[in-house]
Each structure stands twice: as C-alpha cells, then as structure tokens.
C-alpha cells in the first residue's frame, strides 16, 4: 500500500522539493537547482493528454446526464413549486402533479425489500464465510455473484407467474391476524368470509417488495461476505484461544469488525431496490394516492411511473417525468454515497498486524 502511494506522489513531492531548494539563499550566479525528476518526453506528454481527455470525456457525459435532467426538470418544478413534493395526483397537462404518492410507494417497496433481504443476506454471508466447508466455498461465492447478474426481467416473470399466486395466502393470514396494525390493514377484506376474492391482496407493495428483495439479496450478501472474510485471523484465533466457541467468535470478532460492511451493504441494496423498474412494473397495479397499506392491491413507484407515462407525455409531461427521475436519482445518490462512505470508514482494510 505504502509503496504504491510512494510511486503516485512522486511528481507532487518533487515539486515541493524544487520550490524549497530555490528558496535557499544562494547567490544568483550559482547554478540553477537541478531538476529532480526527468523530462517526461513527448510520448509521455501525449499519453497523459490522452488519459486526461478520456477522463474528461467520461466526466462530460456524466455531468451532461445530471445537468440535462436538472435543466429539463426545472420547467416542471417551476410550474409545480413545492406542490411537487406534496401532491399525489399525476396530471401534468393540468398543471396538477406531484410525487408524494409515487415516492411513498417507492420507499415502502424498498423498505419491504430490505427487511426481507438483509436477514437472508446476513445468514448467507455468515454461512459462506464461517460455516461452509472450504471445498464448496468458492462455488457458493460464484453462485451468489451469478445471482446478482441475473436480469431483473427474470425475477419479474417469476414474481408475476409463480410467486404472486402463492404469497396471497400469507398476505391474507397477516391481514386477518395483524390487521389492527395500520400498516397491515386491508380495505375490503373480510376475514370471516371464506369465499372472499383474493384480488384485494394481489399486486401489492408487499409482493413487489419481496420480489425485489430476491434481486438485492445477492448484492448485499456479496458486500457482507467480502467484509466478513477480511476479519483479522489473529483476532479470530485470539477469541478461540480465550475459549470462545464459533458463535462467540462471530459475535465478538466478525460482527463488530463487519458492522460497517453490513450497514453499507444494506444501503447499497436499498439504492438498487429504489431504482428497480421492470420487476416492480410487472407486478404492481399503479394508483396515484398515498398507499400506506402494504398488503393492499395497488401501489406505485417512480420508475414504473416513468415506464408507464413516457410514451404519451407532452412537453410539460416529459419535464415532469424528468423531475420525478431527478428526485429518484438524488435519493439513490444520497443512499449510495452514505453507504460507500460507511463501507470505506469501517475497520475493513485496517487489519491488525497478526
């Protein structure tokens, strides 16, 4: 690590040295200070120029995306003003639109996904890094990584055609016994009617969230496993030497060491869950009211709103969609930055000497 840093900081350091030498009180007739680094030559200057322009190109593309989104979103935002955050309906041509409903739907779906994904991912990560026999460990890691690469449309198909039909009974059970909690309340469901239709439970936040949880669990799992496997071997052996059994070692060494990775991984998964489009779009049936009942039919999310309305959008409608997309982007951006700073600041990488 230190070696690499040394190489990198050579040009900067040498400039400092040069200036310090020139400050020394020498007679002007004396020789000018020697260059401490060689002339890079034409080829290196060209090379560096190419690299810099490549970086600048990528930077321009990325800033263009953000800048253009903000610019187009500005028209809609200046029409809707603060109502953009508090309005539930989406009628941009009438000037009456806002993201209150879709934003609540997006966040609820992502939260359901995280609630299901984090325990599963944590268990799997601990299993792979601590319990699995070393022979199959590499295979398991590959399987989890592969699952993170499975296209979202595959999860969407599974959720729509298989999972939805089977999870409705669970939804019904929860609403029957826990319906007194406002979150699990379902309007129009009658627990005493055995022949009641199941349609009030389909296409709900709960189902969409569970499907998204399967999509994000491999991502969370691979971040957590990476951090757990970096837990210093000396501290593990120390715990064992003090008489800890395996769970005692995990609780006193691996989990405290991996806390940052656990939180960061969960937030990275949250960022992915917020932006997920196709699986959610296939499952939910869109409504434009705030839907706090997660078991109830009908919800919406920002990304499915865009996928639903982009085709018929007028000028102002497009701008409104841009504003919604910008809001989504800002949300995932904040979540991702917090996550990566937590992962970077955790003890991971600053291992003990042993």
């Amino acid at each position, binding site marked *: 690590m230190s*070696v*690499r840093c*040394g*190489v*990198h*900081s050579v040009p900067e350091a040498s400039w400092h040295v040069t200036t310090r030498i020139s400050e020394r009180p020498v007679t002007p007739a004396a020789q000018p200070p020697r260059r401490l680094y060689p002339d*890079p*030559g034409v*080829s*290196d200057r060209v*090379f*560096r120029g*190419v*690299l*810099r322009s*490549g*970086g*600048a190109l*990528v*930077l321009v593309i*990325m800033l263009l*995306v953000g800048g253009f989104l903000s610019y187009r979103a500005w028209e809609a935002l200046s029409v809707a003003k603060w109502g953009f955050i508090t309005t539930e309906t989406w009628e941009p041509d009438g000037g009456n639109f806002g993201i209150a409903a879709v934003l609540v739907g997006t966040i609820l779906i992502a939260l359901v996904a995280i609630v299901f994904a984090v325990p599963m*991912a944590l*268990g799997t990560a*601990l*299993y792979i890094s601590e*319990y699995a026999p070393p022979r199959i460990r590499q295979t398991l890691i590959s399987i*989890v990584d*592969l699952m993170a*690469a*499975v*296209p*979202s*449309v595959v999860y*969407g*198909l*599974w959720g729509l*055609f298989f999972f939805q039909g089977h999870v409705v009974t669970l939804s019904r059970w929860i609403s029957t016994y826990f319906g007194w909690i406002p979150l699990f309340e379902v309007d129009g469901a009658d627990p005493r009617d055995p022949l009641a239709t199941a349609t009030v439970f389909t296409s709900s936040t709960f189902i969409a969230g569970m499907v998204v949880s399967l999509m994000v*669990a491999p991502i969370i799992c691979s971040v957590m496993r990476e951090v757990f496997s970096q837990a210093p071997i000396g501290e593990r052996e120390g715990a064992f030497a003090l008489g800890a*059994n395996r*769970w*005692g070692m*995990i609780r006193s060494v691996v989990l405290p060491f991996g806390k940052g990775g656990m939180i960061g991984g969960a937030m990275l998964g949250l*960022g992915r869950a917020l932006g*997920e*489009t*196709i699986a959610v779009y*296939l499952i939910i049936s869109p409504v434009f009211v705030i839907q706090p009942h997660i078991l109830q039919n009908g919800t919406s999310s920002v*990304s499915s709103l*865009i*996928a639903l309305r982009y085709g018929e959008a007028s000028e102002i409608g*497009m701008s409104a969609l*841009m504003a919604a*997309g910008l809001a*989504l*982007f800002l949300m*995932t951006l904040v979540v*991702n*930055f917090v996550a*990566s700073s937590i992962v970077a600041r955790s003890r991971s990488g600053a291992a003990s000497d042993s």
Partner: protein
Amino acid sequence: MTVTTAQSPPGDQGPQPSPDGPVTPSVPGTILPARRTTRTESRRNLATLRATDVYAMLAAAAASLCITWLLFDRMLPFNGALGFVVVSYALFLGVYALLVSFDEDGPAVRDRVAAAVVQSLGLVMLAVLAFVVVYTLYEGRDALPHLNFYTESMADAGPIEPLSVGGILHAIVGTLWQISIALLICIPAGLVCAVFLNEVPGAFSRFVRTIVEAMTALPSIVAGLFIYATFILALGFERSGLAAALAISVMMLPIIIRAADVVIRLVPGTLREASYALGTSRWRTVWHVVLPTSRSGLTTAIILGTARGVGETSPVLLTAGYTAELNTDPLHDPMVSLPLAAFELVKSPEPTYIARGFGTAAVLLVLVLVLFVFARVLGGRGPGQLTRRQEHHRVRASRRDAKRFAAYASADQSSDRPAPTRSTP
C-alpha cells in the same frame, strides 16, 4: 488421553514411583519419561461433529414435525403449507435448544442454535435463488425445443399461431447489435478512464472518480429517459437500436470504470517501480506492465458489465421501441432486444405468447450464464497469478535463456580466455 510422561510437580519432593511402567530412579533435577510399551496410542478423532449432535438434530426435527402435525391436524384451526413449515421450524429450534441444554452449558446451546439459524438462512436464500433460475428454464420448456424459435421472427406469428411458427431471431439479432455498439463505446472509454484514475493522480482524477461513483447510482430507467429526451426528442432521431445502445452505454460505463479501477489498483507497486527503475516511460509501463498484469481482471470487469447491460430492460424499453419484425439496421426503425421481447410477450394474455416470453427469458438467462462462466474462467485470478499455460511459456523462456548463456560461456571457453567462475575452489 492419559499422560505418558511421569513428571513431578515442582513443589513435590521425594521419590515419585510411577504407578505402572519401569520406575526410574528419582535423581533430583532429572526425570526421565516413563516408557510404556504395553498400550498403543489410539488415534484422535479430529471431527468436530459428534454423534450426539447428529442424534439431537434428528430427534429435534422428528419431534417438531410430530408436534406441528398434531397442532395443525388435531388441535388448532391452522392450515397451509407455509404455516406448517414456519411453525415446525420454530418448534425445531426450541426442541433442539432443549436437547442440547441437557448436555451442554448456555454458550454452547447458543452456539448450536445460531449455527442452525445461520445455515438454514443461507440454505433458504440459495434454494430460492436457484429456484428462480430453474423455474424460468422449466417454463421455457414449451418454446425452447422448437428450432424455428431461434430462426424466425414474430412477424408471421399471430396471437393464435402455435409455437411451431414464429420465434425470437429479431430479439437475438437486436441484442447482439445493441450490446456490440455499447461495448464499442464502453471498452475504450471505460479503460482509458480507469487508467486515467490510477496513473494521473491529482485533484481532477479524484473529482472524476467521485462523479463516476455517483453515476453508478443512476437508476437504469433514468438513463433511458435521458437518451429518450436528448437523442430522440431533442435531436430528432427515431427510436432505433443505436439509441438503445447509447442508453445501455450510459448505464454500463460507470459500472465498467469502477470495476476496472479496482482491478488496476491491485497491480503491485513493486512491478511499476521495477519498470520505472529500468528507465521506462509512463505509457510503456502502462502498456507493458500494468495492463498485461491486470488483463484477466479487466476482462472480468468488462464481461460482468456486459452481463448487466444485456439483461437491462428499462433503458431499452424507452429507446428501442417494439417490433415483431427482424431489423438488421441499428440506425433506423425499432429494434427489439431479448429482455424487452420477454417483457412484451408475457404482457399478452395468449398462452403461446407467454410460453414464448418464458422461452425468451430462458435464452437470455443462458446467455448471461455463459457470459458469467466465461468471466470466471478468464478472470478470478489475481494480478501476477499465472495460468498453467503462461507458466509453461515462462519456464520454456527461462530454459532458452539458460541455454543461450551456456552457449556464450562455451564460446568464451573456446576462445582462450579463462572461464569466468566456477573453476575456482
């Protein structure tokens, strides 16, 4: 294990006759080990799993199943498979903890229960994920065996046509076109930017790295919306494969740059320093040391980015349009890709369309699997680690060098100068 050495504790004085074995005369200060020849040492059992653990687990499983059956079938108004599994699992944990607590103390009980919970959570997740994949492949079984599924487009297949008519050739061709164009943009730009982030340190590259990391958070639908608003609405191009490829590139570029950046950062600094110490210029160091060293990792980064790009539906949904016909021109007219075709086909109520949709998803899944396996075979190797073939090449090169040196040495000997070393004692 019994101790095979007779060792007197320090405070103990006087002769210490061993109970068995030949008695050594106890000289103060020197104690010889008592030797036993009669009993052979039994081999230690290194397994951490004991038979009682297995019995406890099996017994707990059997007990929980029985109690749950009793509850569900005879005592309580519960039913349903999921409830059965959940209740029996909870009971299993309880009974297992009880059984272990007969023999062990508190921490050991917690250890066993935690191990059971962790292993079952891992098993559940891997099983569910495997099930998703297998389900898609299984549902694709109706469409996949038809050869025309791969050689025809959907142009002739109306809603009631059987599966023996029509296929997804147009989607396969569209995916290949779009991902090729996207890679054509992403590979040069991504690699140059990753090298830039590592080789030209400074405030500017730190800024670029921050922005790139921020853009990995860009939801894919927003990338599609951006291209739709600029390329199609503002610049007036039509919906085409090119627009879809641009949207995929905007999404893929940050992913590839970030992965490649990590890989290049892993190149050992000693290799770079060795190169600089030989007087090499920067670009030659990058070209001959940094890039070859990280080649397998870079390949993996690109292939994994490709797998993500191939599977994304939402940017393509906004920019490519939908068509049932084969379109080999990426610049004009709508061009459908595999994920988009699967998405559009399953929205139809016709069973044959749904079967084709699952077939399309299965083809896409197989494509991603192949890409992934390819990435693992090529990559998964740290910088500097060689394959057998590379190692073989290196050994042969070094043997050639040795032969060359030997030839020089013998040439030197034949001309009457004394041989350089070796002969001196």
